[in-house]
């Protein structure tokens, strides 16, 4: 029963920088986590050593470098914790618990010829690492990425560098095409259909706001392409103790899943997306 595969480590801050628009990125030295992490996993971070804010904050691993022992998180400021994180200084240590969540293992891309990634806003963060890993395996990868406006988009250069096809859109048209991720996904699905790839050799994964996930779930319902979604929910522990992060299961027998341990990645058809 005792596996000790999750660690709480004092991680040294290597750098914190402001990226394009509203995004920030921190690189942390945490070799124990870097060597264990899978794409789509996350960490639970103690923003500062005080009783307020009390809870840790969950962030996806947007990149990991096991060779040098670093992990990367990318975020936008939405409240107190994310604001405090912008004040982190190089060489200070922050407590990082991880790697957490199911993530996706090597079998996720088994027999796959094409990976379709769909991201909204900060949902791009974990998608980046998955895209990089997919390209390393030689899987054809397309990213469909959108946000309300340009400043809410994260930098996609890392995926461009590894040869991922990128389609960007904003609702206000301030960058890329004007429209929603689903509009663009619909278009891309038509193009993919022309390639006549067996749906079994395709796989899609979405991460972003709940309404976006619900919309892409509808869109994919008409295809045979397996669709996975990565969810967020309010968390306390981040590793299965408190049952705080519940999301309703489609199967009434199952009741609820825990986003932190049963997820964050789920088959879209297994979970009930309730918009708050």
């Amino acid at each position, binding site marked *: 029963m005792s596996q000790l595969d999750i660690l709480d480590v004092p991680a040294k801050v290597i750098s914190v920088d402001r990226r394009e628009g509203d995004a920030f990125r921190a690189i942390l030295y945490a070799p124990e986590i870097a060597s264990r992490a899978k794409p789509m996993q996350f960490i639970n971070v103690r923003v500062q050593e005080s009783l307020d804010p009390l809870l840790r904050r969950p962030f996806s691993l947007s990149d990991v470098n096991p060779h040098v022992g670093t992990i990367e998180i990318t975020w936008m400021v939405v409240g107190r914790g994310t604001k405090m994180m912008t004040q982190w200084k190089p060489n200070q240590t922050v407590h990082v618990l991880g790697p957490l969540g199911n993530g996706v293992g090597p079998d996720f891309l088994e027999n796959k010829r094409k990976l379709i990634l769909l991201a909204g806003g900060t949902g791009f963060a974990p998608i980046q690492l998955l895209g990089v890993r997919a390209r390393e395996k030689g899987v054809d990868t397309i990213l469909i990425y959108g946000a309300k406006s340009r400043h809410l988009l994260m930098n996609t250069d890392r995926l461009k560098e590894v040869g991922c096809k990128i389609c960007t859109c904003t609702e206000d048209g301030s960058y890329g095409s004007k429209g929603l991720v689903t509009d663009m996904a619909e278009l891309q699905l038509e193009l993919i259909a022309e390639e006549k790839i067996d749906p079994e050799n395709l796989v899609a994964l979405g991460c972003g706001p709940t309404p976006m996930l619900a919309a892409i779930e509808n869109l994919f319902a008409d295809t045979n392409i397996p669709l996975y979604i990565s969810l967020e929910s309010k968390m306390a522990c981040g*590793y299965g103790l408190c*049952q705080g992060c519940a999301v309703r299961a489609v199967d009434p027998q199952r009741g609820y899943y825990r986003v932190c341990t049963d997820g964050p990645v789920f088959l879209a058809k297994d979970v009930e997306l309730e918009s708050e």
Partner: protein
Amino acid sequence: MDLSVDVGGFVVKNPVIAASGVLGYGEEYARVGNIDWFGAVTVKGTTLRPRHGNCPPRIWETPSGLLNSIGLQNPGVDEVITHYLPQLAQFDVPIIVNISGETYEEFQEIAKKLADCPHVTALEVNVSCPNVESGGMAFGTDPGSCYRATKAVRRSWPGPLIVKLTPNVTNISEMAKAAVDAGATCVSLINTLLGMAIDIQNKRPALGNIKGGLSGPAVKPVAVRCVWEVFQSVSVPVIGMGGVFSWEDALEFIMAGASAVALGTAVLVDPYAPKKIVDGIQSYCESNGIDSMSSIVGIAQV
């Protein structure tokens, strides 16, 4: 130094216990920490039948506090006995099973099933859960009901019996006395304080279940006061909890009258908290010439 202490019919090797609801059944915690760090572990509130728990969101952070409305999500007592307790019993730590019933008969029935399970050291009767509609806290807010619920368990459970009290009452000592009169060998306190918050972005209550239970450092002064009062009114040991995050907090409870403390929210924030707190108590005692835990229990009482 020997940190062991008697908590009413059983001895714990150190006075730091895992509170109910924050360790599940130990499975997940064992991936990060060492269950042996605790003097005893209390498992999640267990009911006669499985419960899926409340509608999300179930968690909301407040200044130095945590509001939760989990709603006693658990697989039911039979599954706990066949599947979860044998796993947890691998560790050399006494197991306390926290139980919750909707009726007196249910309390008695759950206790009966657990009496036949070799892995259980003590029962903790939850008459204080603010997150369920029927039963729950209602049993712990009236001395007569508290007495009857305790008595129902006592009829089928011969071993150490802890009654967990709610702070959501005017006079907590009365509840403690009722529990002891009905056969409790220990009382634990406090369960969470009933609270709520509004999410002003959504213009809705922050929790799916509207109200929830407040825990963490924000409730500590209330908890210390409750321990102080209960220590004066009953002669059985008291397990104190509510916002214990450091060894200093733990000693505060002990000096107010707790024989041991339990950690809830602290474990969620820092999985290594039990180890740090046990080590801290140890060094404090050593450098202050204290040679037994019992010598400082309630030492601050005037």
